[in-house]
């Protein structure tokens, strides 16, 4: 219980991170992580601008807009369930005509029951401490009026500073655009709302927030207050609910992901089948090395597009990660206390910690493993640590009392 009071301390957070990362590593790609949860888990297709596609396209500095257009059209015509374009459209491309054609296509998008299309907003990273991740990069598409089927979202996630691993998301982010403070929801938030067909009310209320304009952005102090509310770049880990559950690995088998190299679509001369996109969530993104969009995650490196896929699945299927209810937690804690008390009174400290540890591993780890697919997190690392700590305390107390004991025995010898 004392250890629990320091739950948010840096080193306990690391311990818990390691435990949860290991749980994700064990669960990645398992069918059990698809078959649970609130909604039927969507199937994903990653239209991947890989190194081969990049070379086929002549290694362009910007992703060619005509290629993007062909990929979106393919997903739209294939009746995808949802399309996410994880490519920065802030700057104009290499060909003004292609830029115009893409913009015109987007302005007409959705008139014939097309799947929802999510575009990503990017932010200027800024200088540390001064309006960091506040200024939204304007896009050349801003001058066009996009239809209701096209949504703007933000692809920002939180990197844990000590190991550079992405573990948390920003569900909403405030930013400044054209002097106005606006709220931009995360890609996974809008995606979950759209996929749920309006059944998740707590998510739905954010879905249209990208159109809300709050106030003038000129007041630096006000902006930093709003922007920092629960949006620290330094993750304190207090927000369990901001944690993603990664289940879809990159370059490893995953039952709910098909990766299709983009050049197979853009450069083909054959008739294409829509089998791989029909009724699936299609994410268009890049994995080629020069895209600089490969990141560390608890289940290995992966492109940003797949982090978004994991985030969509995590929010839609498991919701926000949450602990057990208070009552259940107390039952678990009391059980552990009783077991620890019994073992430490019955055995020497080393054997006691082994027995208690075996109980935690044999009892708590399976529960944690089982409940993980429902989005519940039962921490087993900290109780294990508590056992070890308890043993250290017991050893210390024993070492303090031992001289007196031996002294007593010596004094008794002459008698």
């Amino acid at each position: 219980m004392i250890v629990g009071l320091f739950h948010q301390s840096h080193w306990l957070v690391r311990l818990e991170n390691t435990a949860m990362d290991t749980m994700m590593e064990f669960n990645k790609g398992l069918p059990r992580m698809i078959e649970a949860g609130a909604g039927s888990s969507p199937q994903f297709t990653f239209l991947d601008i890989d190194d081969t596609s990049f070379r086929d396209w002549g290694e362009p500095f910007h992703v060619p807009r005509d290629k993007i257009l062909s990929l979106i059209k393919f997903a739209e015509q294939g009746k995808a369930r949802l399309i996410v374009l994880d490519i920065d459209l802030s700057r104009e491309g290499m060909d003004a005509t292609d830029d115009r054609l893409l913009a015109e296509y987007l302005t007409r998008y959705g008139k014939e029951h097309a799947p929802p299309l999510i575009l990503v907003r990017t932010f200027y990273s800024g200088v540390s401490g001064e309006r960091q991740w506040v200024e939204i990069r304007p896009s050349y598409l801003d001058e066009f009026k996009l239809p209701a089927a096209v949504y703007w979202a933000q692809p920002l996630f939180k990197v844990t500073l000590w190991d550079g691993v992405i573990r948390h998301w920003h569900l909403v982010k405030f930013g400044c655009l054209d002097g106005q403070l606006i709220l931009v929801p995360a890609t996974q938030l809008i995606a979950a709302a759209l996929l749920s067909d309006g059944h998740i009310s707590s998510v739905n209320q954010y879905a249209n927030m990208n159109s809300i304009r709050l106030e003038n952005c000129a007041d630096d102090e006000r902006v930093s207050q709003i922007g920092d509310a629960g949006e620290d770049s330094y993750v304190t880990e207090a927000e369990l609910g901001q944690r993603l559950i990664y289940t879809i690995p990159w370059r490893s088998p995953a039952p709910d992901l098909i990766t299709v190299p983009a050049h197979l679509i853009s450069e083909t001369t054959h008739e294409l089948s829509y089998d791989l996109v029909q009724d699936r969530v299609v994410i268009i993104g890049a994995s080629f090395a020069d895209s600089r969009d490969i990141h560390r995650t608890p289940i290995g490196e992966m492109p940003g597009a797949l982090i978004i896929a994991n985030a969509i699945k995590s929010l839609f299927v498991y919701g926000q990660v949450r602990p057990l209810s208070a009552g259940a937690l107390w039952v678990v804690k009391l059980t552990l206390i009783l077991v620890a008390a019994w073992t430490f009174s019955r055995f020497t400290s080393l054997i006691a910690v082994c027995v208690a540890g075996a109980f935690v591993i044999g009892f708590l780890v399976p529960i944690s493993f089982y409940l993980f697919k429902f989005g519940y997190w039962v921490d087993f690392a900290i109780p294990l640590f508590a056992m070890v700590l308890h043993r250290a305390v017991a050893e210390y107390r024993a070492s303090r009392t031992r001289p007196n004991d031996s002294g007593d025995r010596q004094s008794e010898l002459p008698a």
Partner: protein
Amino acid sequence: MIGFRTFAAGLLLLTTTVANGSFWVSEFRDSASQYRIVRGNETVSIQQLMLLKTGDTIIIDEPQGQVVIVNERNEYLRLTSDNSPFVVPESESPPQLLVNVRNWVASWWNTRGNQSTSTMAAVSKGGLAPRFSVAGSGQNLLLSGAREIRVAWSGGIEPFEVSLLTDSGELLVQQAVATGNTASLPEVLLQKGQFQLRVAAGDAGSTVDLTVVDREKLPAVAAEIMNLDLPEQILYGHVAMLLSAYGQWRFEALQLAHHYNLMQLELDLLAGDFPESAPGDVDSISAMPDFAERPEANDD
């Protein structure tokens, strides 16, 4: 909340085999009519990116036919007539807990010792200046008149901006977004005088000087060739080849080669494959070598 049966069922799932993913067609060579897919009692035509079902039979009739399919492990299988007929097998079982645990232990173990490193490139892509090909840092001569200027460079990162300016810096023509490593500036009327040619990639750029001269400044032999009664392409081909022997005139040689569609000469010039030049030819036009002594110039 969670009953024992549910819990037990969850544990059972760890060992249950569930259909995992599917095979799909990545690519195939030539026409779709060369291939047949037998599905049950019917034959379906092959399509790129089509999903295959267990039991589908792929038949490749032509010896040079080739189909690439992808399995659920993202492995590519190349089928030829040697593999025909190929029956799509049962999908493999999905990832399992014990396999994940084993892989996790293996990855932890492999990060010890020599295998704990991987290669990365510490390189900035920006800031590299493109450098002109053919045109040099010295004098580059160009004939006056209405000219469409062909420019070539290497290095730098797209998009490029190619500009022709007067000596005082006034912009004459420009191609604002150029890709690749060559560009043709729109036709512009050039009078005698000094000009600047610039190619830029972002903030990084290179500039060379152009000196526009009249035909009288051409080497005497070149002028004589131009008086010959030959088809225009052959005539200017010889002139271009002759001029390519002189550093000062190589840029003009490139213009002629491009304009008269002398592709081999243009490629040679871009590749830096010039005819040998006599010492001193860069400094003086009059130091022109004897045309007859240059067998390279007589080729083609």
